[in-house]
């Protein structure tokens, strides 16, 4: 079973997403903000991280930078699930090696789940089509 960690400070979204993913056969861990998220990522080394950007204590970008620094976790795939979407930010995220970036208001939970499925389907070298390109 694939393990997914959701790092998201907004309750509703976090809980809904967790529920959805678990219903679709994923093992889900949650973190309420960046610091906790980073810790759990280091501890558990998940198969995928769904990461928000705007969070208290430590934001998503800092988390990504920290992940990059740590060899043991540097190649864990990350998908940004955020509400901002400024090109500047997206570029920055891409430079840090994220797999994808979705804007929460443009996708409902089911779509997010489908996206996660698709991701794992293509993990083995198949071409991954970015969600926003669809």
């Amino acid at each position: 079973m694939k393990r997914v960690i959701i790092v998201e400070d907004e309750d509703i979204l976090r809980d809904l997403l967790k529920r959805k993913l678990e219903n679709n056969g994923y093992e889900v861990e949650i973190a309420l903000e960046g610091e906790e998220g980073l810790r759990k990522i280091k501890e558990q080394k998940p198969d995928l991280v769904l990461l928000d950007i705007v969070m208290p204590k430590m934001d998503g970008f800092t988390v990504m930078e920290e992940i990059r620094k740590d060899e043991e976790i540097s190649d864990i795939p990350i998908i940004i699930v955020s509400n901002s979407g400024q090109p500047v930010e997206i570029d920055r995220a891409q430079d840090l090696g994220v797999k994808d970036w979705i804007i929460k208001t443009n996708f409902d939970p089911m779509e997010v789940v489908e996206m996660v499925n698709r991701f794992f389907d293509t993990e083995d070298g198949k071409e991954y089509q970015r969600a926003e390109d669809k």
Partner: protein
Amino acid sequence: MNTERETSEEGGLEHFCATNKNFCGHMRNTACLLPIAFCKVDPSGRIECCSKMFKETLGYRESELLGLPILSLFKKKRKAKEFLRVLSESEGVIDDMLTLETKPEGEVSFDVSARSIYNEEGVSAGYLLTLKRKGSGDDFEREVRKRVREETAETEKEKERVKELEEVLEIRVNARTRELKEIAQLLEKKARKRMEKLEEKTREVEKKAKMEEESRVALLNLAEDLEEASKKAEEEKDKTLAIVNNFTDGLLFFNRYKELALINPQGKKIFNIEEDEVLYKKPSELKEVNERFTILMNAIEGEMKKVFRKEMSFIDEVFLEVTSVVVENEGKEMGVLVIIHDITREKKVEKLKTEFVSLAAHQLRTPLAGIKWSLGTIIEEKQVFNLDKEVMEIIERAFEANERMVVLVNDLLNVTRIEEGKYVYEPKDVDVKEIVDIALEEYKDLIESRGLGFRLEMPEETLPKIKADMEEISLVVNNFFDNALKYTKEGEVVLKVESVECGKCLKVTVSDTGVGIPEEQQESMFNKFFRAENVQLMDTDGSGLGLFISKNIIEAHGGEIGFESGEGEGSSFFFTIPTVKEGANITPNE
């Protein structure tokens, strides 16, 4: 012999003698001029003095006569003596006829008259003697008369001759006079003509003088005007100079020869130089002046033939907008004006705005996402939740409303980014068929589920690719379809793709049979937040931003956007995009 004659004559002479002491003096002075031949003889019998006539009658010179014994003059001395003796005894005048010797050789008879004269004491002072030619009186008279007659005759002859001459003269004179008159007339005519000419010339001269005066006045006026114009020009120059010097932007002017001819105080400040370091240098030289000029010249050097605008920055966080304008005067290029506008503050504001928008987006979207996912989950899993139909309807409506809110927030964010000029996108070679496919997938079923027809018109052959950002172009197509759906209650929606302008562009059209756009609303269609009046009352809504965003996207791709519509007749919205071969060099909207 005659004896005394008592005449007035005698009395007169006596008186004369008596009263005149110096007789001879008088004789000499006056009496000698009398036309009487007389003389005075002194008591000794010698001639004391005589008249001119006496001399001439006898033909003697005065020197010969004076002192001469009077007797020597007489021819017959005895007679003469007798005469003299009688004379000495008489008191009055005695006359006799005697012969005297005249010069030249000759003897002439004279009537001689004499009278003794006495001085105051009664002593004898000699005697006066006169001579008269014998019968000469009558002869004389006759002679005179003869002479007069002769003279008169002569005179008459002369008169005749004169008269003749006069007549001839008169004729001649008349003729001459006529000639002269004619000549005079001619001359007068000539003179008149000359006068006229002269008058004419005078008038001309006067006219010329007047014209010259007017010219002079005009010149003076002109001079005044020129002076005024010159003053105004000077004022303008001063004004311009004042403006240039106080202008808050940096101004540089490159002349025809690409030399830097002017740099204003603000310009000097921006580039941190003094005038003499840069004036009249050419671009290549200016590059060497300092780092800032290097940056400037690199930015503008190649572009100095046209109008352009660029941004550049110096190392120390100063952002400048450089605008270059070619200055022309009547078709001739005078030079290039470069304006340096400090936009550091604007950049800061832009940055702040971007940050704000980011934040706002996130903040707005977070609750919206929450609502979306919550309601969405219920709807998705309605079987699981098994709620009342009525409740589900309420939830579904809430979900739809929230979706609209999401769209609105997205639009607002897009607009903000467009306005900042930072609507960055990635143009790639795109096959329009892909865009069509995506659109079909999204909208075909939706359109048909609303009871409308759908048609696709696209040529069979492969169309050339377009240079486009797929995401953005899809946005535009979606916007067209959204509008078509919103405003069409019955009929059909048609998607048409064609190649236009000989393959230079592709044209994509979405047509509907909906409410259409009233003519007076048409020109505002692409304005921000504009919604036509005829749809505002419908049970639809829209942010009024869709077309505004679409227009910006298409124009940034170097294409054109437009529509055809009539109220109640439906609408056709289209856009064109340059194809890869010809229209490849689009300039992104920076």
